[in-house]
């Protein structure tokens, strides 16, 4: 049975002073009606449902890939309607500015010429691809799908932790978490009206198909595909889900061929033209003629077809320049520069380590800070100062001095917590929230997003590859509902 815990040291999503917040009361009351055995049975049922359906991700290791499910925790993150409206506005503002930035650095470079962002951060960025400078992009849109990671600090204030503008994964979990929640824990939905996910994929399909490549005649039907690395890719289930829901073929590189600068699909009745490639493989694997020669996942000639305007590639090639952890520090400046607005959602304070003054201060305070590699993701190459050993801090000290531009540091944010149920008991776990922005002719934010939870007690790392789990995220429909 649920027992309130001391929530004083961190902001808690559900509790305040050991009592449920207003918008959690119906959930809390329902929770009290379950016996331990019932909760345990439901928990088992929910976990096995993910495994049976093959909703897994692959963890890469020395022995090859291991398939795992992301553990599901049934305590939802509930967001009141008015809070969500604010988040939605903030995300739209941020993604809009990031898209302007990408269009700018691959064309006029106004923001660099104005000295707002140091040019070397772009020109020396390994993800800034000169090969795609000046390309005429469908809708001038670089970001079809963005995954913006939010956290809440100790005061409950939302802050952006990270922008993912390349191949953000996890959208399928948003839907599957809701399906499992509906099927296994239907009781919790009573007394709540929440925003539905039902029509989201239709909106996504429409947004995808609106990216008609410049050379496609207006009366021609548009053909889109989702390009995956294949069944062993860590996010393969995500790819299957998206392709199926958007009703487009799921293809591998070897299913495609380029002829006369156009991309074709190899079908049982010969070749069929492809106009839009929603790729879920990284830039460097897309085309062995332009990027990595050893890539078996891509298609020779694809980038040339893209440059010629015969095919749209989503997300656009070269987005990595805008979402690395160093560029992140400048997003508020991008918002001010392109939109002439103040950021609605703040960043987490970030120290850039190629600045000598900031670096020296950071090196003295490693035990209090989080240090991240600007190019890494998934919780890799990361130091969490307060939880680290002197030995690890020494290693990072050396790494920072060797390649200061490769690292950033941030204060250790007291990530908000929410109760999680594992091994027959409830305990508080740190969480974050990935919000998905979909952009076609308009921008659309998927209500709620993916709440990730650091299931290991005390851990701040929510990534699924590091043992994190997922929660359903509810956005309350009516303003003021239970709030």
């Amino acid at each position, binding site marked *: 049975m649920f027992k309130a815990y001391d929530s004083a040291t961190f902001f808690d999503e559900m509790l305040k002073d050991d009592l449920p917040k207003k918008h959690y009361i119906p959930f809390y009351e329902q929770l009290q009606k379950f016996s331990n055995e019932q909760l345990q049975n439901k928990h088992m049922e929910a976990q096995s449902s993910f495994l049976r359906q*093959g909703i897994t991700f692959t963890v890469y290791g020395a022995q090859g890939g291991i398939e795992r499910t992301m553990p599901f925790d049934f305590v939802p993150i509930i967001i009141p309607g008015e809070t969500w409206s604010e988040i939605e506005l903030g995300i739209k503002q941020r993604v809009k500015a990031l898209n302007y930035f990408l269009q700018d650095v691959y064309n006029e470079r106004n923001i660099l010429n104005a000295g707002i962002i140091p040019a070397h951060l772009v020109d020396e960025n390994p993800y800034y691809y000169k090969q795609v400078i000046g390309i005429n992009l469908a809708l001038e849109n670089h970001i079809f799908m963005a995954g913006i990671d939010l956290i809440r600090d100790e005061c409950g204030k939302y802050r952006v932790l990270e922008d993912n503008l390349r191949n953000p994964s996890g959208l399928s979990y948003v839907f599957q978490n809701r399906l499992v929640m509906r099927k296994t824990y239907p009781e919790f939905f009573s007394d709540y009206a929440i925003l539905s996910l039902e029509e989201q994929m239709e909106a996504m399909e429409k947004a995808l198909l609106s990216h008609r490549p410049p050379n496609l005649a207006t009366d021609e039907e548009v053909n889109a595909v989702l390009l995956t690395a294949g069944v*062993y890719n860590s996010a393969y289930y995500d790819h299957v889900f998206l392709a199926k829901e958007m009703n487009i073929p799921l293809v591998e590189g070897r299913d495609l061929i380029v002829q006369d600068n156009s991309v074709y699909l190899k079908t049982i009745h010969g070749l069929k033209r492809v106009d839009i490639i929603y790729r879920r493989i990284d830039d460097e694997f897309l085309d062995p003629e332009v990027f990595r020669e050893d890539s078996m996942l891509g298609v020779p000639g694809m980038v040339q077809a893209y440059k010629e305007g015969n095919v749209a590639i989503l997300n656009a090639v070269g987005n990595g320049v805008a979402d690395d952890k160093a560029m992140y520090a400048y997003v508020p400046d991008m918002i001010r520069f392109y939109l002439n607005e103040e950021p609605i959602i703040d960043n987490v304070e970030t120290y850039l380590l190629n600045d000598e003054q900031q670096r020296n201060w950071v090196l003295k305070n490693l035990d209090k800070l989080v240090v991240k590699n600007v190019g890494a993701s998934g919780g890799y190459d990361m130091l969490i100062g307060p939880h680290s050993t002197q030995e690890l801090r020494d290693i990072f000290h050396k790494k920072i001095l060797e390649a200061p531009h490769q690292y950033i540091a941030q204060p250790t944010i007291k990530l908000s917590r929410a109760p999680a149920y594992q091994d027959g008991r409830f305990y508080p776990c740190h969480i974050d929230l990935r919000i998905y922005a979909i952009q076609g002719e308009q921008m659309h934010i998927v209500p709620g997003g993916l709440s990730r939870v650091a299931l290991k007690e005390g851990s701040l790392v929510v990534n699924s590859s590091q043992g994190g789990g997922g929660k359903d995220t509810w956005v309350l429909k009516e303003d003021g509902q239970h709030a």
Partner: protein
Amino acid sequence: MLSRVADSLYWLGRYSERAYTNAYIINVQIDQMLELSRTEKQYEQQWHTILSICGYIESYESRYEGYPISQMLNYLISDLQNYNSIDSLLTGIRNNAKNTRDCIPNALFEEWNSLYLANNESPLQAPYTVLATTEYLVKVRKTSLTATGIIDSLMSRDESFLFMKIGKWLERSEKTALIILNLMENEEILKQDFAVTLALQLTNTLDEYTRRSRMRDAEKVLNFLVGDKNCSRSVGYGIGKIKNTIFEIENHEVPLYAQQLFEAIEAIEVLIQQNASDMTKQERKQWVIQIHNQCIKLGPIFSETYYLTEPILVK
């Protein structure tokens, strides 16, 4: 439809059928074995036949010594180096289902995935007791039958469905021809009467045949298993289904690129229409060899016609 996906669906159909048939055959053999003495010549010969039909006798003999029951069952059920072992087939089915998840019903993937996961969690292993082995084989057969039910009741009759069906019919025709051939080769040792009954048992047609005919003459059974139009496990039935299905894919025309395929099918049809009763023993054997060879050739011609591309699984 994508060529790679078509290939996976075709093999999904073939492997599912093979898993069902092999599980059934091993089950029949376990039942038969209970009444035989291990010292009888027939006992060893019968297992030899089963190893040939459900695996590769040469590969078995090169890797294993002798014919202890537990070793043979390990080879036929659990040995992942034997591409036709039940567990290899389960892996193959799951991979192909995973590869085509956007074209098949979720329930179909879940059905096979559940069996795969259950087997991974507590695999059948030595000692292969009769009860545990039979229980596992029945589970495989039931999963296959449920999967067939899901395909038939949930899938649109589109190309995905048709490619899976072609895989299934081809696998079945080839297997029936292989069973007859192996039993004919062992007729001396197994004795004709016994071989004839065993052929009906291994092809899962004993009940059907007995219902329709009391006489188990070798020629009659041979005609039944090769060309009977109403027996769903006869070679002719499968080939007829394949021909109709391809006609359906091609909108009832024979396009130039599919000409070789139709010729190959018609060549088998001509063979099948012959009557075993008019043949000598030697001619009968030659006849079945020819049918079996033609069935084996059909797969590659089919793959070539539809540009079927094998998936490369990048780890």
